[in-house]
């Protein structure tokens, strides 16, 4: 007779204990812990079987068929898959809550507090979930008003959640912390707080949170925002600004007097009237608008590297296109697959795109030095009438079209063509494409948008898979 394994009963005991903990200590996030520590269940199970086997062996009653049953193997595979997925989700910041907790009612509470800022130089906001609106003013007090939403199955539970998460304004040294204490929630319901805060505008502002929109305006100090998932709007900030986000739908910064440093992933980006240097390092999949930047811009993403000295005009960019107007060079742009259209730029332009058309229309005299290359795409060059330049425009596979006139000579050699010519003493203009038509024409001529010839076939070379991010 085969002795039955003790695994079954022990599993029941562990399950019972787990649910007991879950019911009695809601502050322990059992499911979250389980998503990390589940491999130890396998280890414990294996150890248990090992002990069983040893005990049987020393008793001399070891059975021939002490392997695992098919059911057990299926269960182990199942646990591995679920555990793997749960851990992946945990790492992505998704915290598990059982489905039945998604229900319940929302209970609202109004929150508010006021405290003098004293000699503090820094104010820190800690709000895990919810929106913040911070407004600087000519005042001495920090004043918080807002609303707290507690998710709970009944009023008593909601009250318990509310009481356990008091809003605090704590002064310590030169720092004042405004804390919503959502992580001290004694219940399992979600809590989120939307707050409007007026602070003395001389302070430096720091915002930490997980999920919520942050709106900071009219501050004379610096601003720093760090969040997992949030939209950020900055307006009229005199100090430097630094924004670090894991994910966002929109980041907007307008009227900044200081530097802006932006990091992370997101979608849309709107920057306007920024007096300081702008550094962006991240990936953005939506529309990007830059307008009126007085100091150098450095934008770096997995697909695009853009540097320029200043931007009196504007640049808009999305995944497939970049258009710019009135750029102060030296401009440096390397991008993987974008159509690029730049009107009016100074000093020099260095441009390289792997796949995409290029249209350049310098208006500023004397002309900027141009070095533009596309691996696959047509190039349109529109030059002012009176400009002086030394032009070399080539295509390896395609046509060269000269709409400029006399000083430019066309040459064809097999599949490749080129346009060469010089007018007076001027900047060197080198444009080249491996596949596509090269056109040079005079600004103001009537053929504004000549019919685009069919794009040549893409080259057969295997292409690297690209992330769908700008």
């Amino acid at each position, binding site marked *: 007779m085969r002795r039955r394994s003790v695994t079954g009963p022990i599993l029941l005991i562990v399950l019972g204990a787990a649910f007991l903990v879950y019911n009695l200590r809601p502050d322990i996030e059992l499911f979250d812990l389980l998503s990390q520590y589940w491999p130890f269940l396998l*280890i414990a199970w*294996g150890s248990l079987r090992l002990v069983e086997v040893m005990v049987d062996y020393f008793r001399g009653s070891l059975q021939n068929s002490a392997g695992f049953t098919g059911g057990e193997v299926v269960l182990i595979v199942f646990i591995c898959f679920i555990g*793997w997925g749960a851990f992946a989700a945990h790492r992505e910041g998704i915290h598990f809550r059982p489905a039945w907790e998604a229900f319940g009612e929302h209970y609202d509470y109004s929150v508010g507090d006021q405290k003098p800022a004293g000699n503090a130089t820094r104010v820190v906001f800690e709000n895990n979930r919810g929106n913040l609106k911070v407004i600087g003013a000519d005042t001495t007090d920090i004043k918080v008003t807002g609303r707290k939403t507690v998710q709970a199955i009944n009023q008593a539970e909601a009250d318990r959640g509310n009481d356990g998460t008091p809003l605090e304004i704590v002064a310590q040294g030169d720092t004042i912390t405004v804390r919503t204490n959502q992580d001290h929630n004694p219940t399992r319901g979600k809590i989120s707080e939307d707050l409007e805060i007026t602070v003395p505008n001389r302070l430096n502002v720091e915002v930490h949170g997980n999920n919520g929109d942050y709106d900071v305006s009219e501050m004379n100090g610096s601003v720093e925002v760090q969040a997992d998932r949030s939209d950020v709007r900055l307006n009229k900030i005199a100090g430097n600004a630094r924004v670090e986000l894991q994910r966002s739908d929109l980041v907007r910064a307008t009227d900044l007097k200081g530097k802006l440093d932006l990091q992370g992933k997101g979608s849309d980006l709107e920057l306007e009237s920024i007096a300081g240097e702008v550094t962006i390092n991240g990936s953005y999949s939506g529309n990007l608008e830059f307008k009126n930047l007085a100091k150098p811009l450095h934008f770096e993403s997995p697909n695009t590297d853009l540097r320029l000295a200043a931007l009196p005009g504007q640049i808009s960019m999305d995944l497939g296109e970049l258009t710019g107007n009135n750029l102060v060079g030296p401009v440096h742009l390397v991008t993987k697959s974008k159509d690029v259209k730049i009107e009016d730029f100074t000093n020099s332009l260095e441009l390289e795109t792997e796949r995409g058309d290029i249209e350049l229309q310098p208006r500023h005299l004397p002309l900027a030095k141009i070095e533009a290359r596309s691996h696959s795409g047509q190039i349109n060059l529109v030059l002012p009438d009176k400009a002086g330049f030394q032009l070399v425009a080539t295509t390896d596979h395609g046509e060269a079209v000269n709409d400029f006139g006399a000083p430019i000579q066309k040459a064809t050699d097999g599949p490749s063509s080129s346009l060469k010519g010089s007018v007076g003493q001027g900047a060197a203009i080198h444009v080249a494409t491996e596949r596509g038509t090269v056109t040079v024409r005079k600004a103001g001529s009537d053929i504004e948008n000549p019919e685009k010839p069919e794009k040549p076939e893409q080259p057969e070379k295997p292409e690297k898979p690209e992330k769908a991010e700008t």
Partner: protein
Amino acid sequence: MNANDANLVRAVRWPITLITLGSLFALNNFTDYGFHQTWPVLLIVFGLLSLLGRTTVRPPVGPPPPGTGGVR
């Protein structure tokens, strides 16, 4: 060196594999060594256990015919 030993090796094979599996996933969750890197350890452990089974196993009666010493 007897049939009971052979049974022991066979019986511990699955528990030990399970412990190894659990350890690899624990490494995956708490260290930089991902399961996608460490999974060959499972093969090695299973192979070692099989090898161990082979060295201990002898047919219960009679000497083995020459040249087939390791057959179970």
